[in-house]
């Protein structure tokens, strides 16, 4: 068998397996209910670490972004990063949380080589934000999950265990150590893998939209643990839960939860019980394995961090952060639909790309037609920018020039074709709409006599095509229009050209 066909077989098998799993899940969930809560760690987009001035940039040489503070040297003290507090509060406000004016730092004590102090500075019984809500949608309709809390904490370093000459080595990179995180803990309000997925997507969107986190799961900026339990439909008490770790992508979150729901149901249906334990998702094997049982659970010996005074966030400060909060994705979607009459696809693009959206809205505010603007900004301009590898915030065509171009187009002074040529030149040269159009004489010809001259010339030089049209071959009409456009270098008013061409072709004397 060739490699291609074996690969095709494998992917076919995978698809069959996925379909079978989905079918089994559907059956299982007809009499059982899944109860899921997610704990999401999001790395805050600060330049420096939570308690020292080291850089948080990803991908640097191991142990190059460290100092005595994040290395846990004797005698050093943590000093909180103000920007991290702002971002945590911003996320709290974006999810409707109550922000605690006096929250408490705590130490979580455990020994691990990538945790230099052998305790993590976090928040425990008095976190900075509590009682929020995240809305999201699944196929069946809108849903929401309550947030129990959002707290600030520092990240640990990374341990790696490379093999070298048959021996496993242990390597520690402390660059990430001390990076600011928020942990966002939901209530167990999610009722299945689809809801968990959609909740996570909504959370990621808010994090990105508010500039709190870059949302990059590959680089570990966003990490997710899931607490999963099941109960028979109609029951209100919660079942014993397990905690799933190592869910490093949206797909893993969904797959691991499905696996775990099916495992728990199968166990309970065969008379077994669920052990409270921490499980590790093994993506390569598509299953979980026990990381630690309840008996092995750590006693973290939390206590208030004596090196840090309580974290005070004054009402004025909260108000200031609220004022700077950008419009949230859900509200923005509704407004874009309402204000500009845009379709779902366009709305999604604009919500995902806030800078493009800002540009678009400025063009409309400047007098550009919203329908035209959506096409010319989202498709034409963005296309050129992609070609040049530039961001829209760095666009060679400033908003007023885009408005000028679109107004000419709307007024019929420019054909679509000419406008495209003009835009391309504006992008490439940085020139204005007016200068480009003047330089080329790209004015639309809407004077009947001038248009007729082009039409007459086309009819005269294409007797065969004209004859065929007159004999009933309608499709030749568009071709003839094209010939006129070509001859006029795109300058004739297309609508008037069509009218005049039809008249001319209908006139046998011509």
């Amino acid at each position, binding site marked *: 068998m060739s490699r291609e066909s074996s690969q095709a077989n494998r992917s076919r098998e995978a698809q069959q397996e996925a379909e079978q799993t989905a079918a089994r899940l559907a059956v299982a969930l007809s009499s059982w209910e899944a109860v899921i809560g997610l704990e999401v760690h999001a790395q805050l987009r600060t330049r420096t670490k939570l308690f020292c001035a080291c850089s948080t940039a990803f991908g640097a040489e191991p142990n190059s972004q460290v100092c005595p503070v994040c290395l846990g040297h004797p005698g050093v003290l943590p000093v909180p990063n103000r920007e991290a507090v702002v971002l945590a509060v911003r996320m709290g406000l974006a999810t409707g949380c109550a922000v605690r004016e006096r929250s408490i730092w705590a130490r979580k004590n455990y020994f691990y080589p990538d945790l*230099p102090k052998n*305790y993590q500075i976090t928040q425990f019984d008095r976190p900075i934000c509590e009682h929020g809500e995240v809305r999201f949608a699944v196929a069946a309709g809108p849903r929401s999950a309550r947030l129990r809390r959002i707290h600030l904490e520092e990240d640990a370093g990374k341990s790696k265990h490379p093999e070298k000459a048959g021996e496993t080595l242990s390597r520690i990179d402390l660059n990430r150590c001390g990076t600011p995180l928020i942990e966002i803990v939901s209530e167990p309000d999610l009722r299945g893998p689809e809801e968990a997925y959609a909740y996570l997507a909504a959370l990621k969107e808010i994090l990105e939209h508010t500039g709190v986190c870059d949302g990059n799961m590959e680089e570990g900026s966003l990490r997710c643990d899931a607490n999963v339990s099941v109960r028979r439909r109609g029951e209100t008490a919660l079942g014993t839960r397990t905690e799933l770790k190592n869910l490093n992508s949206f797909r893993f979150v969904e797959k691991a939860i499905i696996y775990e729901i099916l495992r728990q149901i199968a166990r309970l249906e065969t008379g077994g019980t669920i052990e409270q334990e921490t499980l590790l998702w093994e993506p390569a094997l598509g299953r979980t394995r026990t990381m630690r049982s309840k008996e092995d659970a750590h006693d973290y010996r939390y206590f208030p961090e004596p090196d840090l005074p309580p974290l005070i966030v004054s009402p004025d400060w909260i108000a200031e952060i609220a004022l700077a909060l950008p419009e949230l994705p859900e509200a923005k979607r509704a407004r874009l639909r309402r204000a500009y009459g845009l379709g779902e696809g366009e709305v999604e693009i604009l919500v995902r790309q806030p800078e493009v959206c800002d540009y678009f809205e400025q063009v409309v505010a400047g007098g550009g037609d919203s329908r035209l603007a959506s096409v010319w900004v989202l498709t034409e301009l963005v296309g050129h920018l992609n070609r040049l590898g530039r961001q829209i915030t760095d666009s060679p065509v400033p908003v007023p020039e885009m408005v000028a171009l679109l107004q000419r187009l709307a007024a019929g002074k420019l054909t679509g074709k000419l406008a495209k040529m003009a835009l391309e030149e504006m992008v490439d040269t940085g020139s204005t709409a007016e200068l480009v159009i003047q330089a080329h004489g790209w004015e639309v010809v809407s004077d009947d006599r001038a248009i007729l001259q082009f039409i007459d010339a086309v009819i005269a030089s294409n007797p065969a095509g004209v004859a065929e049209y007159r004999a009933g071959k309608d499709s030749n009409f568009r071709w003839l229009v094209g010939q006129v456009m070509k001859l006029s270098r795109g300058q004739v008013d297309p609508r008037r050209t069509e009218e005049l061409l039809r008249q001319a072709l209908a006139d046998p004397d011509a």
Partner: protein
Amino acid sequence: MSDLLRLSASEIAAQVSRGGLRASAVIEAALARIAEVDPQVHAFLSLRAEPARRRAEEIDQRVRSGARVGSLAGVPVAVKDNLCDQDGSATCASRILERFRPSYSATALRRVEAEDAIVIGKTNLDEFAMGSSNENSAFGPTHNPWDLDRVPGGSSGGSAAAVAAGEAVLSLGSDTGGSVRQPAAFCGLVALKPQYGHLSRHGLVAFASSLDQIGPMARSARDCALLFNAVAGHDPRDATSLSRDPRIELAQLETLPDDLRLGVPRAWLGEGLDPEIRSAFEATCARFEACGAHLVDLELPDPRHAISTYYILANAEASSNLARFDGVRYGHRAEGVHDLHAMYERSRGEGFGPEVKRRILMGTFVLSSGYYEAFYAKAQAARRLLRRAFDQALETVHAILIPTAPTAAFRLGEKSGDPLAMYLSDIYTITSNLVGHPAVSFPAGATQEGLPIGMQLCGRAGDERTLLALVQAHEGRHDGVGAARSAASPVTGLLGRGPAGEGWR
């Protein structure tokens, strides 16, 4: 011993800055004194002889060129070896940090150097500042210069002994439960535990973060204030350091508050208090009355509750603070181990001494699930009550007067087998740490055997000035250690009459 070392710090600095005295001469005298007596006293764990000589020459050079020099120009200062020193050590008198070389210097150390003081060496202490006798040092105890068979107190015993023996003129210690005040009492010095937050803890290897304060030690109130002024003040590297400027105008030490009222918690002066200390206390009260103070009886919570509270909170914090010493990145690492847990256990097992282990175990226990509420949480509540009671009492008086320790310096080995007896030697000092307010120990006489006796004033929040003014007023009516014996040991024989005697101020 050179007479230079009998000068006060302010006198040395004044003469050095005028060019009348060379810093190099002062340093040579101190190094000579160290060579002479430290083999018996063992105040120092390491010396900075060459760097100190270079610093002294550099200061003299600046004086000759007419440049301004700092307020401690040429003054030899001894620094407790739990303060990080970029050019030296921070052993904390522990095997686990024996070969550790700090990559930065503590703020307090940088600040004394910025005032042109000269750090001549790092002093001995109870391991990680846990102890009251210096017997918990992994490198052997310090001996009390007044009687070499006795302890200098602890944990800043090395810093106290160095100044008492004339090896340094000033020293820095740290005080978590009395660790500058009790050794100052045992060695006949003035030592201040500042308001929590007035001195940066940056670079002080933490024992119990919410209680630790660095404290200046000197032979007089004025010198103590001078050193305090050099090191105190806000530090952006310490989030618990206060923003206000706590420094004291030295001229203000001359004036006492109008209607001066001192509180005396009579109930504290019962069980366990040595009769000699008690009578020295009454004499001190009388001297303050002669200064115009009105003495007021106070009701304060039983200090034994403070002991329990203290040992729960301090050990809880210590168990976490000392977790970083694990052999992974720096410090002692056990040889020949092949798995992580064995490395942790053996490195820590070999690196820490018995008292440190005892406290880590107790601290871990009181934070453990199921015990936290009964111990840690309750101790936190007790601490709040204590603070409230102290603040209430201090609304009616300017300061509280009590002995610094229930006894004078005890013999080496006398209490080292009985941790609880040892813990009781902190009974009068730990409350100020729990409350956070400043407190000062000062010399107030001697025992029949000629050992120094110290008394203590505990002040209002942030008010070091009144405390040191009171100590200075007391110095005017009393010659400190006074009749302490003069020739009982080779070391004190050289000291002459005593720290507050003629020629010392």
